[in-house]
């Protein structure tokens, strides 16, 4: 037999050639992403034109033409309005924001007590930051501190009336502080309650199931505005005269229950996505209902619906602005109040400046939540890679 010294397969790899010039480099990136088809090209050009048209004006208004210092409205007035600025000037009036910054943050919380709010904020961040960073150990202790102990600390510090701290009634609260209190309570209450309601709705026990369905559908069936309205205006007529419920408490309960109903449906979506095999696997290991849910089903289901959960949180964060209609002043409410009620700062630019500031603060919070949820999704994305 003749020896084959000839291989049928190449023994060494062909050297990789450089990608064609048309496929790499900035030119290729532009072509691929911005000018792939004629339609794309047209859209790109239009979009660039729109940016070129709007961006300089925006930057000018917000930064370059803006007024940064001043004591009252005259700082932001043009000569024809009785101020110093050239006629036709338009720009942000930032001294309005810096002058009222304390109110935007704390509402009418007494000046000399504001350290209590700041301290609460520091404790909040000190507990939240390690909870969000996956590398930091002792998550269990941290979580208990944040979700169970912190509310008590915050309550004693913010409300006061104990240990020599003067009592600060909630109508004096306001600004970002109220927005964060409402959101924190909404988030901390709605997630566990939502999970329970979702499990209740999928339960085989008829009464539990019925009650869960009734709660979820009733709450989802009415707008939050209606719930707040009822709590604020109708409730006082039903209870004996002279008796008042704390308005903030009413709003907290309303917002939390409302978010819980939405959360329940988000979590139920996750539960439905878990294959039957997972339940049966858990059963075959001899796990009870709570073990099965806690160790097998929920970790997978919640991971699936992180976008939905965060979506609900962000929606709720923004819904807190609705408490304005029951005369509670969250960040947006305080900004509005200062715009409409305060002649010391009444200028043509004040309203715009105030709203831009409020929008920026809301954007920072919502964008932060959204980015963190994307980070968590990637981190927890084990076994579902596409």
């Amino acid at each position, binding site marked *: 037999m003749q020896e084959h010294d000839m291989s049928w397969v190449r023994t060494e790899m062909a050297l990789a050639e450089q990608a064609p010039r048309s496929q790499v480099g900035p030119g290729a990136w532009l072509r691929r992403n911005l000018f792939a088809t004629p339609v794309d090209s047209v859209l790109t050009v239009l979009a660039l034109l729109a940016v070129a048209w709007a961006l300089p004006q925006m930057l000018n208004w917000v930064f370059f033409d803006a007024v940064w210092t001043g004591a009252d*409205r005259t700082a932001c007035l*043009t000569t*024809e*309005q*009785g101020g110093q600025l050239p006629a036709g000037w338009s720009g942000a009036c930032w001294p309005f924001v810096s*002058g*009222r910054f*304390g*109110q935007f943050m*704390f*509402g*009418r*919380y*007494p*000046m000399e007590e504001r350290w209590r709010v700041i301290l609460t904020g520091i404790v909040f961040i000190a507990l939240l930051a390690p909870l969000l960073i996956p590398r930091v150990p002792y998550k269990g202790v941290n979580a208990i501190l944040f979700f169970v102990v912190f509310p008590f600390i915050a309550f004693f510090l913010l*409300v*006061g*009336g104990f240990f020599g701290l003067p*009592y600060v*009634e*909630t*109508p*004096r609260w306001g600004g970002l502080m109220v927005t964060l209190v409402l959101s924190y309570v909404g988030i901390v209450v709605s997630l566990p309650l939502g999970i329970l309601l979702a499990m209740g709705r999928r339960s085989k026990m008829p009464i539990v199931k019925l009650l869960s369905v009734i709660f979820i559908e009733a709450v989802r069936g009415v707008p939050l505005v209606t719930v707040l309205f009822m709590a*604020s*205006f109708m409730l*006082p*007529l039903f*209870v*004996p*005269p*002279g*008796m*008042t*419920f*704390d308005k903030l*408490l*009413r709003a907290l309960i309303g917002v939390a229950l409302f978010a819980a109903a939405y959360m329940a449906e988000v979590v139920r979506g996750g539960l439905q996505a878990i294959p039957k095999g997972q339940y049966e696997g858990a059963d075959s290991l001899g796990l009870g209902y709570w073990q099965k849910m806690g160790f097998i089903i929920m970790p997978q289901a919640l991971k699936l619906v992180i976008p939905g959960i965060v979506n609900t949180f962000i929606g709720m964060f923004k819904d807190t602005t609705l408490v304005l*209609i*029951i*005369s509670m*002043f969250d960040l947006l409410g305080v900004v*509005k*109040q*200062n*715009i*409409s*009620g*305060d*002649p*010391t700062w*009444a*200028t*043509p630019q*004040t*309203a715009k400046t105030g709203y831009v500031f409020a929008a920026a603060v809301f954007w920072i919070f919502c964008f932060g939540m959204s980015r963190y949820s994307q980070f968590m999704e990637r981190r927890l994305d084990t076994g579902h890679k596409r």
Partner: protein
Amino acid sequence: MKHIAIGILGAAAFGFMASAAAADTLSDVKAKGFIQCGVNTGLAGFSAPNDKGEWKGIDVDFCRAVAAAVFGDGSKVKFTGLSAKDRFTALQSGEIDILSRNTTWTINRDTALGLNFAGVTYYDGQGFMINSKKLPGVNSALQLSGAAICVQSGTTTELNLADYFKANKMEYNPVVFEKFEEANAAYDSGRCDAYTTDQSGLYAVRLQMASPNDHVVLPEIISKEPLGPAVRQGDDKWYHIVKWTYFALLDAEEAGVTQANVDEMKNSDNPDIKRLLGTEAETKIGTDLGVSNDWVVNIVKAVGNYGEIFERNVGQGSPLKIARGINALWTKGGLQYGMPIR
């Protein structure tokens, strides 16, 4: 804290006690140590928080005056910001003791809603503002036939406007907005020829216009909006205190008693001033009312007389610069008339 605790514990335990005591507001107020006053959440010159978060305005100062009359201390008052919708509920349910929230005195509110108005702290009325650059030569609302008029929806303003133009057989074109800011912006950008709302509001709007000096408030007032403080019906004692606080503010102005000279005035020999300031021998004017005899001194020390309150909040001492007009004393051609304290 107490409020939250009550809220949690529920109606049963506390409800009855509260309802039994509700008919005597003065005792309630004295027991809790402060007056709860309902004000607007933010209306320039009437009630709004300042830099430090303290409430300022005519309506606010009136409540401080009542607190000064009752406690001798104008700071013993707490404010609740109320929307137009929840203001009457708040008063009826006892959440507040005085409603001082730019509320128009009407017969319906006196009878059907069960309120008692204590007086008129500001005679307001719906007016028009125009841009004199755009409409030169217009100096009366009767020349506005065919004009586009910016107005906020769902207010009596809108109805008054319709009535006025119908009564004068004129055409107009309403441009309706849901929000105050939207109406402002539309008027400023020239979408409407005229802007209509309460006159006190027009002065505040004018400050936000691009060129305020071009805008003119027309002289016509097309509706009566007497704004004043109100209390619950069925508690005459409390009603009298609030009502006479109002008259005392006017009488103090008429007698020339101001925040600055009130201590001097106590030595005055003028019998009117002696009666007013409670320096007459064996006077019972204050105690009959249920307050101390130097109640007017306390009021004037705390907030000044009516004229001082007006000038400080909406008049020349404020950015609004509203003229006294019909809010001047009756001796100066206005409508403010304080009943005699004797």
